[in-house]
């Protein structure tokens, strides 16, 4: 008989967390079916391991064989991991997948994670994330000055450059804090997940996104565990992970469209807004400056940024005459 394997996987999300959790459940099911039961994935959600942001360390140390999380959470540990999720003014999902699988992205990612005894694979995409819920309309750069916003990570740094005060609020107190003007704005994900937190009840302005145009989750695999698997199971795992990421992108599109329709129907107070051009220009410049600083600090970061920017330029030129041209055309005729 052939050997059977069970891989324990820690996910950053709670149990039955929509879309993200569906992705891992479907993934585990696919792996088991494809391997005819020889490879099983046992998923532990955040309520079990209690360490949503400990997934990196736990997989690295072998406490878990696999993880499902997002690369940019590890920015404080390994700065170069930041670039494998999504970057402000960066590539969209299609372009970014092309970069991963055909533009050298995967190789760069393995180079970064290999040093930490892990392999990382794309693990599902949210699509363009919304720019956040604001209680006041933002009409000029001045309106952003001193604005208190829950916006973590690198995007928070960009916002800080244009005068926003990024603010930490415990997730459990976000709703109360926004409702009572302790903070002025909240960035979360997109309609499907934001709806659950109820921000539409207390904030009227929903801004379009720019800071996470294609948030890619990740599967982490402990390298020793990976090497112990027979080649056919490795291949099954690889295919299942790739399928999972595609499934999640599609699922996000579907769930967000549905949630957005519901918000429009039930909360007519909600208005979609886009930041004025001068704000975008200021944030674009700020982003560029921060990238330059990151590149100066680490050779590896410079290599990744360079790869992404040049790939984006070439890929975008084609997106311009294909996707964008099509959407523009549709906007004209409708």
């Amino acid at each position, binding site marked *: 008989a052939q050997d059977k394997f069970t891989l324990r996987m820690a996910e950053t999300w709670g149990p039955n967390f929509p879309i993200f959790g569906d992705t891992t459940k479907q993934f585990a099911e696919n792996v088991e079916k494809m391997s005819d039961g020889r490879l099983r994935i046992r998923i532990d959600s955040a309520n079990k391991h*209690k360490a949503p942001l400990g997934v990196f360390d736990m997989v690295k140390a072998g*406490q878990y064989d696999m993880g499902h999380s997002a690369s940019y959470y590890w920015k404080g540990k390994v700065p170069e991991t930041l670039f494998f999720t999504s970057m402000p003014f960066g590539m969209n999902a299609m372009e970014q997948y092309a970069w991963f699988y055909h533009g050298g992205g995967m190789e760069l990612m393995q180079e970064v994670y290999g040093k930490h005894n892990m392999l990382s694979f794309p693990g599902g995409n949210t699509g363009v994330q919304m720019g956040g819920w604001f209680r006041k309309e933002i009409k000029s750069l001045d309106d952003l000055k001193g604005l208190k916003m829950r916006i973590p990570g690198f995007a928070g740094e960009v916002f800080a450059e244009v005068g926003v005060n990024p603010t930490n609020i415990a997730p*459990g107190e976000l*709703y*109360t804090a926004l*409702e009572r003007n*302790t903070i002025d704005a909240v960035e979360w994900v997109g309609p499907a997940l934001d709806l659950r937190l*109820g921000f539409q*009840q207390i904030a009227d302005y929903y801004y379009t996104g720019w800071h996470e145009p294609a948030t890619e989750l990740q599967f982490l695999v402990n390298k020793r565990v990976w090497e112990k698997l027979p080649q056919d199971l490795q291949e099954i795992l690889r295919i299942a992970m790739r399928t999972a990421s595609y499934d999640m992108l599609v699922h996000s599109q579907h769930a967000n469209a549905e949630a957005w329709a519901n918000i429009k129907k039930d909360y007519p107070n909600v208005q979609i807004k886009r930041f004025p051009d001068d704000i975008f220009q200021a944030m674009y410049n700020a982003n560029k400056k921060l990238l330059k600083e990151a590149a100066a600090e680490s050779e590896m970061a410079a290599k990744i940024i360079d790869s992404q920017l040049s790939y984006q330029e070439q890929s975008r030129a084609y997106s311009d005459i294909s996707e964008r041209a099509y959407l523009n055309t549709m906007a004209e005729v409708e």
Partner: protein
Amino acid sequence: MIGMIMFGVALVMLMLGFPVAFTFGGVALFFGIYAEGMDLFAFMPFRIMSVMQNTVLMAVPLFIFMGVVLQRTKLAEQLLTSMGRLFGGLPGGLAISTILVGALLAASTGVVGASVVAMGLISLPVMLAHKYDKRLATGTICASGTLGQIVPPSIILIILGDVLGLPVGDLFKAAVWPGVVLIGLYILYILVLTRLKPQTAPAMPSEDDNATRGQEIRAALLAIIPPLALIVVVLGSIFTGIATPTESSALGGVGAVVLAIIYRQFSFKMVWDAAKDTVNVTAMVFAILIGATAFSMVFSYTGGDYLLEDWLMMLPGEQWGFIILAMVVILVLGFFIDFVEISFIIVPILAPIAEAMGINMLWFAILIAMNLQTSFLTPPFGFSLFYLKGVAPPDVRTTDIYKGIIPFILIQILVLALIVIFPEWFGMSATY
């Protein structure tokens, strides 16, 4: 099955009187090493870290600090005795005042450890000094200190909103009436009990026999205002958005120190002693949390959560049978497991079944929240009971607290039953 045996062993060990926190931790250690090996405990630093980064729990030391300062400066006593005097010759005035102060604290925090301990510090000595029955006094404090779980803002509701995918605002609104009814029934219970047994909660003697009732009320009102103003500042800072609920507890602590200065009760020694008491009691609360997290870690990693899932799958498929049995299961589990575990293990299993039956999820969520509140109070593992015991004088026994809480648990079950049977009284409906 190891998880179940571990519960039994922990229960027996607790009775030996070794500190609760380390009994939990130690029992978990033996079962954990036996079933999974030492390396299971490599997860412990992560779990401790998640408590460290759970900033909502910062309210615990901060509220305790406020309570200790109010107690050391006698301002708490002044607040409660004056409120009690307002009730004149009516017995039970202090208990009712305690419930009202508990309700106010409940509206400013959702952290049970914070409010039970603060209430214990503020009102237990006063009630005992006025010859209240120990059981009545401790039961009142545990019950009103735990109100924070159902009165918004509430952590249970936020977690349930997350697990069930319901907007937090809707849950908060729906919880208001059940909370009010609960507070009302607590007060009614005190009134009825003291009518039947006045000696359990003696009326406050008048300070000055010659004063008219009018003068008495005026004097009482004057004495209430400063400490009440402090509580209003705490609450007000949340309602106006100056501070988050957690931060408001720091305003409470600093405010208490300011009050002490105004009343010439301030000294650096007082603040330092208050800090020492705060550290002592805070450590007691968090040691329990850490011991319990080791315990629940061993429980779930030895398959306890899967076992629970299997049991739940056997619940009946008809609406009323399902609701009633689900409530009983949650109530019974609440004797043993912490509410966060229940929300994350049980609720995801029950939710789709309830949804398929056409049950109104908002109503279902409120039922669960009411039920989980009770889990803090049920012996032997109700955390509120431990917390109060931790700050109570030695002559208040664990058994006093266990017995004292029973009437309040019955009231909660009554309210739960009312919400089940007459959801429309609470502005809800059972189905869509």
